[in-house]
C-alpha cells in the first residue's frame, strides 16, 4: 500500500476524486480482480464519445425540433454509457490476475474469447502506472506490464486504486529483480524536476518547431505587406502544426520528475494524464542525447531511450517517443544516463570521424559524423543543426548492418548501423570509409558476442549492489 508519509506525486491531485476503498477482491486461490468500480470508469470515459456520436447523428434534428431532440440525444448518450458499462462489467468479471507458483505473472481475460496469458517476470522490461483523465476522477490507475518478446508482450490492467497499482508494481519489480514477494514499495529519492518554463521554452526552441514558427512570421510579414491574404491559409499550417505539437508535448511532459529507487529510475509526468514509468537499470537498450541548435546557449539536452517492449502498442507499430528527460542541462543529463548505464564515460572516447570526402554526401553534417567505442559501449554522433549522440552497450547490440547507396559507393563510403529494439534511438555511423565501416561492423559483432557472455545486468538486484 502507498505510504502516507511519502508525498504522493501522482494521486488524486484533481481534488475531485470519489473516495474509493483499497479493495482488490480475490478468490481462494489468491487470484485477484481489478477494482469493482472499473465498469463505471469505462462507462464515464465513453460519455464524450457518446456525446460526439449523438451530436453527429442527431445534429440536424437537434437544430429543428429543440427540447425533444435534446432529450433524445441525452437518451442516446445514456444508452451508450450503459452499454459500455455492461460490457466492461462482463470484462471485469472475467479478468483475473495472480502470481503463480513458478513466479510468473498470470492473466486470464476475455468475454467472448477467453485468453490466458503468462508473463515471465525474468523477462520483465518495465512496469508503468498511469492515470488517464477519467480514471483520475475516480482516483483509479492502470498498470501496464511489459516483458520482452516479439509478439503481444504487454498486459494492461484497468483499473486499480492508486495504492493497489503501486503495490502491484513494486511486487512485480521485486519478484523480477529476484527479491522476495514482500519487499514493499521501494523508497525513492528525487533527483531532478524539469521547471515548467524550461519545458515550454525548450519545446519552442526545437529546430523544426523554431524553423516553422520563423517561417510563419516571414509569411505573415509578406502577407501583411502585399495584402495577399492567401498566405493566411499557409500560416495556419506552418504555425498551427508546431504550436499543436508544442502544446501536446507540454501537456504530456508537464512536471517531469525523475527520482531514484532500487527498482531503477522512476519518471513521473503529465498534466491531464499522469504517468509513472520505471526504467530498470540494465533494461535500457540504447540512449541518445539530442541537442537542437537553439538549446546550446542554455546547454540543454534531451535524452531519448530505447527500452525493449515499451515502444510498441497492441498492433506492434507505434513509435512513441520514450524519454529519460525532455530537457536538462548537460551535466544533469549525463548523470541520469550514468545511473542507467553505469560506467559510461563519454569524455575519454576516441572518435573515428568520417573522411573529408563525406562532405559530398552530407554537406552540412559531415564534420560531426563519427563513431567511437570502448570496452562496454558503441557511440555514434551525427547532425550539425540538431546534434545527436547515440550510445548502445555492446551487450544490447541485436545485429549489425553495413549499407551503401549509389552515391556513397561512388565516394567509397559506407554506413554502419547497430540494430536496437524498437524505439526512437538509432545508432548509425554514417558515411565512413567503406572498408573501415565494414571492419567496425565485424568488430562490433565480436564485441557484442563477448559482452553478452559476461553480462549480468539483467538481474540487477542480485548482482551485488
Amino acid at each position, binding site marked *: 500500500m502507498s505510504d502516507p508519509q511519502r508525498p504522493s506525486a501522482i494521486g488524486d491531485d484533481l481534488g475531485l476524486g470519489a473516495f474509493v476503498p483499497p479493495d482488490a477482491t480475490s478468490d481462494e486461490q489468491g487470484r485477484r480482480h481489478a477494482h469493482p468500480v472499473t465498469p463505471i470508469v469505462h462507462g464515464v470515459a465513453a460519455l464524450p464519445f457518446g456525446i460526439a456520436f449523438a451530436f453527429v447523428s442527431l445534429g440536424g434534428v437537434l437544430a429543428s425540433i429543440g427540447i425533444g431532440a435534446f432529450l433524445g440525444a441525452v437518451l442516446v448518450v445514456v444508452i451508450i454509457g450503459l452499454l459500455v458499462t455492461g460490457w466492461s462489467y462482463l470484462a471485469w468479471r472475467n479478468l483475473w490476475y495472480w502470481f503463480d507458483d513458478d513466479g510468473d505473472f498470470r492473466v486470464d481475460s476475455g468475454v467472448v474469447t477467453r485468453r490466458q496469458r503468462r508473463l515471465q517476470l525474468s523477462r520483465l522490461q518495465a512496469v508503468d502506472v498511469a492515470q488517464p483523465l477519467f480514471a483520475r476522477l475516480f482516483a483509479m490507475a492502470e498498470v501496464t506490464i511489459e516483458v520482452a518478446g516479439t509478439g503481444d508482450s504487454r498486459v494492461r490492467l484497468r483499473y486499480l486504486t492508486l495504492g493497489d497499482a503501486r503495490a502491484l508494481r513494486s511486487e512485480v519489480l521485486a519478484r523480477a529483480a529476484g527479491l522476495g514477494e514482500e519487499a514493499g514499495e521501494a523508497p525513492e529519492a528525487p533527483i531532478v524536476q524539469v521547471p515548467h518554463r524550461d519545458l515550454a521554452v525548450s519545446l519552442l526552441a526545437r529546430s523544426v518547431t523554431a524553423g516553422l514558427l520563423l517561417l510563419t512570421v516571414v509569411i505573415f510579414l509578406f502577407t501583411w505587406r502585399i495584402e495577399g491574404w492567401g498566405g493566411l491559409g499557409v500560416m495556419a499550417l506552418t504555425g498551427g502544426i508546431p504550436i499543436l505539437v508544442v502544446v501536446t508535448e507540454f501537456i504530456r511532459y508537464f512536471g517531469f520528475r525523475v527520482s531514484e529507487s532500487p527498482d531503477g529510475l522512476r519518471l513521473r509526468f503529465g498534466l491531464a494524464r499522469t504517468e509513472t514509468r520505471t526504467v530498470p537499470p540494465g533494461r535500457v537498450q540504447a540512449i541518445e542525447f539530442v541537442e537542437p541548435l537553439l538549446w546550446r546557449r542554455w546547454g540543454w539536452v534531451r535524452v531519448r531511450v530505447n527500452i525493449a517492449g515499451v515502444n510498441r502498442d497492441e498492433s506492434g507499430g507505434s513509435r512513441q517517443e520514450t524519454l529519460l528527460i525532455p530537457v536538462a542541462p548537460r551535466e544533469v543529463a549525463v548523470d541520469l544516463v550514468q545511473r542507467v548505464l553505469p560506467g559510461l564515460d563519454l569524455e575519454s572516447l576516441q572518435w573515428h570521424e568520417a573522411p573529408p570526402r563525406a562532405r559530398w554526401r552530407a554537406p552540412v553534417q559531415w564534420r560531426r559524423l563519427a563513431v567511437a567505442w570502448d570496452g562496454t559501449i558503441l557511440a555514434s554522433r551525427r547532425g550539425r543543426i540538431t546534434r545527436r549522440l547515440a550510445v548502445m552497450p555492446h551487450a544490447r547490440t541485436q545485429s549489425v548492418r*553495413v549499407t551503401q547507396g549509389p552515391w556513397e559507393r561512388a565516394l567509397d563510403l559506407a554506413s554502419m548501423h547497430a540494430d536496437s529494439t*524498437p524505439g526512437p534511438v538509432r545508432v548509425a555511423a554514417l558515411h565512413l570509409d567503406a572498408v573501415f565501416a565494414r571492419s567496425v561492423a565485424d568488430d562490433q559483432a565480436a564485441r557484442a558476442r563477448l559482452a553478452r557472455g559476461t553480462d549480468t545486468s539483467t538481474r540487477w538486484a542480485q548482482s551485488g549492489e
Partner: protein
Amino acid sequence: MAADIAFTCAEGWTPVSSRLSTARRITLLLVYVLVAGGVVILLLVPEVPAWVSAVVAAAAVISFVWLWWLIGRRVRSFGYAERDDDLLVTSGILFRRLVIVPYGRMQLVDVKAGPIDRRLGITTVQLHTAAATTDAAIPGLTPQDAVALRDRLARRGEQRSTGL
C-alpha cells in the same frame, strides 16, 4: 572496385537459387499485364494524342526490359555465409547491404513460401531478433536447404542464447 571489399566475406558467399529470378520475373509479368492493359486503354481513347500513348508505351517497354535484367542481377547479389558465431547476409546492387546477426541474438527463424515460390520449389528463411530493423531474409533457397539451415540456426541459437 575498392568499395566492394567492404561487402566481401572471407568464407565466401553461398548464392541463392536462380529460380528466384524466375519467381520474381513471373511477378513482374503479372504487374506488367496490368500496365499493358492501361496502355491499351490509352491507345483506344480518341482524346489522347497518339504521341502521348507512344511515349507511355515506350516507357513501359523500356522499364520492363530494365527490371527484367535488374532482377537477374539482384538475385545474383544475394548471398549468405554461416560463420562460427554469426550469420552474414548480403544483397543489393544500387543499395547494398550486409547484415551480421550473432546466433545468440536470434529470437525466431521463419521459413515461408508464397504460391509462386512453392510451384518453383523455393523458400525464404527469415531471421528475427529483438530489433525490428534487423533485415535478414534469405530468399530463393530450396526447401531442403531452407529447413536444414533453419535447424542449424536454431541449434546454434540455442547454444549461444542469452537474454535480451
